[in-house]
């Protein structure tokens, strides 16, 4: 039985709220991370507009697997220099996506700091990446993908599929 993604979003927002600097910016990673970031942005009432990253251009497996066929434009609609940034993703696994996201953010400027908030930490890290906030940790066997899906009505759910 997988946890309820909507509840996890609420829990994640609650854990971010205390002591959040008012000029903080959220940056969601396409596609699931953007959905979660949209939830957090509304729940936290942040003034800074939401950023969105497609890390395809920074992935470390480009020379092996090439470009993803449907790349979205990254959009960072705020000044990055000296700003506290929170990267938001749905599922944290190897940490390679987060490495790519950090590299991309630094091409926009030098943030004051970067934190990481995720719905699920499924373990299996291959890089020294640790989330500051994870709504839940969950053991998922290697070879299976845990992914966030959004229904037509906009409802978020988690699903386990064979990789």
């Amino acid at each position: 039985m997988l946890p309820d993604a909507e509840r996890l979003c609420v829990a994640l927002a609650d854990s971010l709220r205390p002591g959040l600097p008012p000029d903080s910016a959220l940056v969601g990673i396409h596609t699931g991370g953007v959905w979660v970031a949209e939830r957090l942005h509304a729940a936290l009432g942040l003034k800074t507009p939401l950023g969105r990253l497609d890390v395809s251009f920074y992935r470390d497996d480009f020379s092996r697997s090439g470009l993803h066929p449907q790349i979205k434009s990254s959009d960072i609609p705020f000044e990055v220099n000296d700003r506290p940034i929170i990267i938001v993703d749905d599922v944290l696994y190897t940490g390679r996506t987060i490495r790519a996201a950090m590299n991309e953010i630094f091409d926009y400027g030098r943030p004051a700091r970067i934190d990481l908030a995720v719905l699920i930490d499924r373990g299996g890290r291959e890089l020294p990446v640790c989330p500051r906030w994870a709504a839940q940790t969950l053991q998922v066997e290697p070879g299976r993908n845990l992914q966030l899906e959004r229904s037509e009505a906009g409802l978020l759910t988690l699903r386990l599929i064979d990789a």
Partner: protein
Amino acid sequence: MRNPQLNKNGGLQHLLTIDGLPREILSTILDTAAPFSEVAEREVKKLPLLRGKSVFNLFFESSTRTRTTFEIAAKRLSADVINLNISTSSTSKGETLLDTVDNLCAMQADMFVVRHASSGAPFLIAQHLAAMGLEHIHVINAGDGRHAHPTQGLLDMYTIRHYKKTFANLVVAIVGDVLHSRVARSQIHALITLGVPEVRVIGPKTLIPTDVDKLGVRVFHDMRAGLKDVDVVMMLRLQNERMQGALLPSPQEFFKYYGLTADKLECARPDAIVMHPGPMNRGVEIDSAVADGPHAVILPQVTFGIAVRMAVMSMLAGG
């Protein structure tokens, strides 16, 4: 036989011509170019995709815009770019094209961007690389003779899609020296593959290939009739350097009948866009008032060209 531009998985191996490429690949290139165009807005205008790769610009024919935008595209992808000025190099000492290529392969080339006065030269290089088992080296045609200039055709399609959103229901006119133009050939193949319902070519009989209608275009010799209600006007450069014999009485007379003036442009739709691949001959194929006027999207074409070339290079390098 497999399309020599595609690898065994159906992905792009080389970009030699638009002729024969499926619509899905053209659309993927245009879709992929869009996020690359955003990179120009960043503090660091660089992506790591081609880091450590060597891109050789092999220009056997002079070019400023194309060579420069290829160079910028490769550099924004973090590649090392080596520009070979062929007129002062070994070729002028008698080295053959393929010997030049072999030598550059021995210098660990990863990609060749080739412009050559002879149609088919980039294809010859691609074929040679395959015969040598060097399938990891990619070739991009940056204009070969009268044959093709595929990245120009693609950046033109990107420009049209940017301003017109879709290719369905468009009427597009290509105007001028179609006979000598590799750009026109690439444009025609791309427009038809992407589903533009009406493609016209406009020019004097001496500068329109006799069987061009077999490609699915309508031929007009009267410019006003040809421009009637068009959405997109694609001007071509009058290729003085390729003219042999008396194809034209004079540039002045060409301008009178086929030069794009504000007056002739009034035959097109009020929201028509005017494109030109450059370099422009002002007062020959296009009047300054139009080239600098509100319908012209000639400078955005140049900017979009960088993103399109970044997309093509990345798709090739990524297999």
